[in-house]
């Protein structure tokens, strides 16, 4: 199995979720994060003092999938999350050795 991690722009969440469920992905986990990268936050002024915003709000999606789905899933995320603008985010894929559904104790692909 694979563990896919995607960093996306927050307002893209619903689109990504929809296209993933279209692929039959049954579940995923979302975390609010702040991202540092090429996309710099606009520089702000607060009470007359200018300051640079280094971190930009992002959402991190974590999706455990069957290895077979890897390319489809990565591709689906790219399409749904892409705006062509800097700061669209990344997709990372790691190897997932084991998965278990707590409720049933099922393991492997059935657990996803």
């Amino acid at each position, binding site marked *: 199995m694979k563990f896919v991690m995607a960093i996306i722009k*927050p*307002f893209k969440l619903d689109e990504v979720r929809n296209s993933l469920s279209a692929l039959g992905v049954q579940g995923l986990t979302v975390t*609010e*994060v*702040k991202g540092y990268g090429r996309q710099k936050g*606009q520089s*702000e*002024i*607060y009470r007359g003092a200018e300051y640079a915003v280094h971190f930009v*709000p*992002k*959402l991190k999606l974590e999706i455990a999938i069957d290895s077979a789905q890897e390319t489809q899933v990565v591709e689906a995320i790219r399409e749904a999350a892409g705006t062509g603008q800097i700061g669209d985010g990344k997709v990372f894929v790691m190897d997932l050795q084991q998965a278990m559904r707590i409720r049933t104790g099922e393991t492997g692909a059935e657990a996803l």
Partner: protein
Amino acid sequence: MKYSLNKSASVVALATSLTLISGTSFAQDATLASVAKETSYVFNTLLFLIGGFLVMFMAAGFAMLEAGLVRSKNVSMQCLKNISLYSIAGIMYYWIGYNLMYTGVDGGVMGSFSLFGYGFDEVGKGSTGSYSTASDWFFQMAFVAATASIVSGTVAERLKIWPFLIFTVFLTGIIYPISGSWHWGAGFLKEAGFNDFAGSTIVHSVGGWAALVGAIILGARKGKYVDGRVVPMLASNIPLATLGTFILWLGWFGFNGASQLAMGTIGDVSDISRIFANTNLAAAGGVVATLVLMQIMYGKLDVTMALNGALAGLVSITAEPLTPGPLAAILIGSAGGVIVVFAVPLLDKLKIDDVVGAIPVHLFAGIWGTIAVVFTNSGATLSAQLYGIACYGVFTVVFSAIVWLALKYTIGIRVSEEEEALGLDRSEIGVEAYPEFTFGRG
């Protein structure tokens, strides 16, 4: 009034009686009369001052209500809009508004236009009337601001700051004062027999109409209505909205009570007391009505609807808080609550995006309250009420449409889609309301 008559009557009685026995009647009369006059002058002025600071505080109520009902990314903007509009209202109403509304209307359609033409009584000397000029100005000024606050809530989360402030200039400096003059300035609607004791129409409907026009011209928030579905955009801070509602409720005692305009006699102060009690009961009726109705219709209560219900109850009783008995007050207010429960989803069906529910609360309940006057005030006629409602509606809709459209096609009124998604706090004013509570969110 009756009572002041009684009083001067007795003063006269005294005068005459004394005349019979001495040449001192004048001094005597003058003394008693002056004591009585001075006392009632102080009472009347004090009423305006107390009423004025209570209504002024409503600006905080609107600010908190709106800040609580918008999403966190637009909260700073809502705070800024509210403190700015209150400030602009005060300056505009001094600059041209008060004169337009109150000087030399005599049955006409507007008062005199003069910049800074309005002056207060000289230091140490009061007015020759029965209250201080400045106290009246202060009280009336606080009403103008309320009108503008109504607008800011409806058009929240997508309207740019400067166009809003410019609209506020026109609303508080021209639209409200001119239309206000028709009734309170002793203009043609006064003569037509229109009745609006404290402003269900003059203040609340006018604000509501301006808000409605703004909402239509501006369009709904992005993502609010997607393929026929209504996508709720949740209030970010319920206790803040609750606080705002309580503050408005408090301020309403000044709003309605001080609209009696005099407190120097047993009759006046007792009428103010009736108004206080009725105002409170109407708001209570509005709340209870929404509770019961929400339970019946949805099987669940909704605190934001209960808050709107309280305000709708208050708006409903505002056109006539004096003549209803307690039970009538409860019923009039309850009807306001019912209006809210039905009107909020209705507006969504029409894709009119009213962020805080100001249109049902101030416009619809305001119309209802103005009509309801006829049930308890024998002096009011349905025709005159409808006529008045129509005049205010047409004028405000046309005039504010002109201003909104002029702004739209010049400097533009709406932020870009990205800015809207990012939130007005960061795109327009660069200060997030809760930078630490919304870690990771725009």
